[in-house]
Each structure stands twice: as C-alpha cells, then as structure tokens.
C-alpha cells in the first residue's frame, strides 16, 4: 500500500516534469455560495466571451458539475487551454428549510436539497479528474471551517496544485487577510468575481501555477 502510494506520487511528479502540458482541467471548488460559478463565468466571459453556468444568491444553485471546454487563456506571450469545471458547493449538511427562506415552496426546497446532496457527491468524485483547482472562499466568512480544511487537505494529499481565491473583496466586511492568516502556507489571491476586481493578478498566478 505504501509502495503503491509512493509509486503514484513519483509517477505524477515525473510525468509533470517531462510532459509540459498546455491544456488543463481546472476545477472550481469551495463551500456553497462562495462565488464559484460567478468566478467561473467571469473567466469564461473574459476569455470566451460568454457565461456557461448559473449563479444566484440561493445556496446550492449549482447542483451538478458544469463544464466549459477549451477556453484559451492568453496573457502576454503565454497561452493555455483550459476546461473550466464548475462544481457544486461542498457541505457536510443540507437542510431544505434553508431554501424556504429564499421563497421556494416546500416541494421545491426538498427537491433542491435532494439534488444538492447528489451535487456534493459529484463534486467529491470529480477531484479525481481535475489537474488544478481554484478553491473559492467567501472573504466575508470565517475561513476556519471544517469543509475548507477537508477540501484543502484532499488537494494536498492528492498532489493537486491549487490557489485559494478570497472572493467578494468588494464587500465592506470582507477580509482576504483573514484567509491568508488562516492558511499561511498557501497562495491566497483576493478578487471580486462579480465586480472583476483582482482578476488580472489571479490570471497571472494561475498561469504561473500551471506552468510549474
């Protein structure tokens, strides 16, 4: 078992060294309502001139994996082709009553909750298919959350490169600093996907990460 894990680790390291990839599958991961779909749409708008996924204020709007294939990211003389994979928010609990607060009927709320549970399962399974990840966190919320820790731990243990995106920095009570403080070992980029703030810096960091 230890031998298999070591073999897998070195195989992935060696293949990364010798096969300089130019196309990647980029997953958008994070808890519900952190702005994953808004960020995925912003990237798609910036580089493919169209949105591809639905975002809203209601939690668990994305309940199945949505993919935008072959988006060409260009920055200066650097070019990458990326499949954008918007995943449902990962949560440890789903309460249909939470959706009632957003004016959904009880039947709609229950159906949404059922779909959301399947979405969490899909998002976790998709970790096996992504080359890199943007972990999208809401900068107005406390980052010390078990879901965030579990996501980061899984990326770390699977050797999947990732950036933490502190989203919603346009909001008054947002603090990218709090996220940096909570995760000092990782790169944290502050953005407002909604307002398009900090996107150029994020693209620079993304290209840098994928070119490593």
């Amino acid at each position: 078992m230890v031998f298999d894990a070591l073999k897998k680790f070195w195989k992935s390291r060696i293949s990364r060294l010798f096969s300089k990839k130019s196309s990647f599958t980029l997953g958008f991961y994070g808890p519900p309502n952190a702005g994953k779909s808004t960020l995925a749409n912003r990237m798609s708008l910036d580089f493919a001139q169209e949105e591809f996924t639905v975002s809203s204020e209601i939690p668990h709007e994305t309940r199945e994996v949505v993919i935008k294939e072959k988006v060409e990211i260009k920055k200066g003389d650097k070019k990458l082709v990326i499949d954008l994979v918007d995943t449902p928010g990962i949560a440890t609990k789903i309460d249909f009553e939470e959706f009632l607060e957003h004016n959904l009927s009880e039947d709609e709320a229950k159906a949404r909750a059922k779909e959301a549970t399947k979405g969490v399962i899909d998002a976790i399974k998709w970790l096996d298919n992504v080359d890199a990840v943007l972990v999208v966190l809401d900068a107005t919320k406390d980052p010390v959350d078990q879901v965030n820790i579990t996501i980061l731990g899984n990326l770390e243990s699977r050797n999947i490169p990732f950036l933490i995106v502190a989203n919603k920095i346009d909001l008054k009570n947002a603090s990218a600093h709090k996220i940096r403080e909570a995760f000092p070992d990782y790169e944290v980029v502050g953005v407002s996907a909604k307002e398009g703030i900090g996107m150029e810096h994020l693209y620079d960091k993304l290209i840098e990460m994928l070119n490593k």
Partner: protein
Amino acid sequence: MTYDAFKTTSPKDIIKRIKKKNVVLIINKRLSPKEEAELIEVSMAYVDGVNFKGIEIATISTHSNKTANFISNIMRIFKSDAEGITLIGNATHIKEIKNKKDYAVLKL
C-alpha cells in the same frame, strides 16, 4: 471509537450509527482528508431532510506547535501523522462543531 475500529467499520455503518443513535462519535485519531471526504460523500446519500440533514465533523490536533496557528497545525498533520481526535455527529441535532485554537465547541 478507536481508529482501528473505525478502519474496520464501513463508512455506511458509521453514518447509520450516527443517524440512528444520535451519538457524537469520538475517534482517537485525526481522520485523513480522504477518509473525511468519503464520510461526507456517504452521508449525503442518507440525507432525508427530517431525521438526518448530514453530519457535523471537526478534528482537533494534539500535536500542536505553539508558534504556528491552528490551521497550520492541522495542515502539518495532513503531511505527517494523525495525532489528534475527530468528532462526528448528526447535524439534525448538533447545530455546530466548531474548531477553535486548541479545542472544539459543540453547539446543540
């Protein structure tokens, strides 16, 4: 529950136990991120909206480095050993299990 007992119990049986008996399971090790993800994944199949809304889970390090912050200590454990404990409960009855600096708060 000892970690050895956890390892020999299927995730389905762990979730069923939490759902049925409304217990807070204390495991004498920190679960690996993959084990946590597997439990979350399995628990989602049992969410029925009434008796079971999912799980609350928290991990506490007993291998803390006082100069580092809480998360750093947890992330360090991902890379090395699994010293610590894991708390898992039924989210229908437990409002929150929240990680604090060197302890966890369980809100009912």
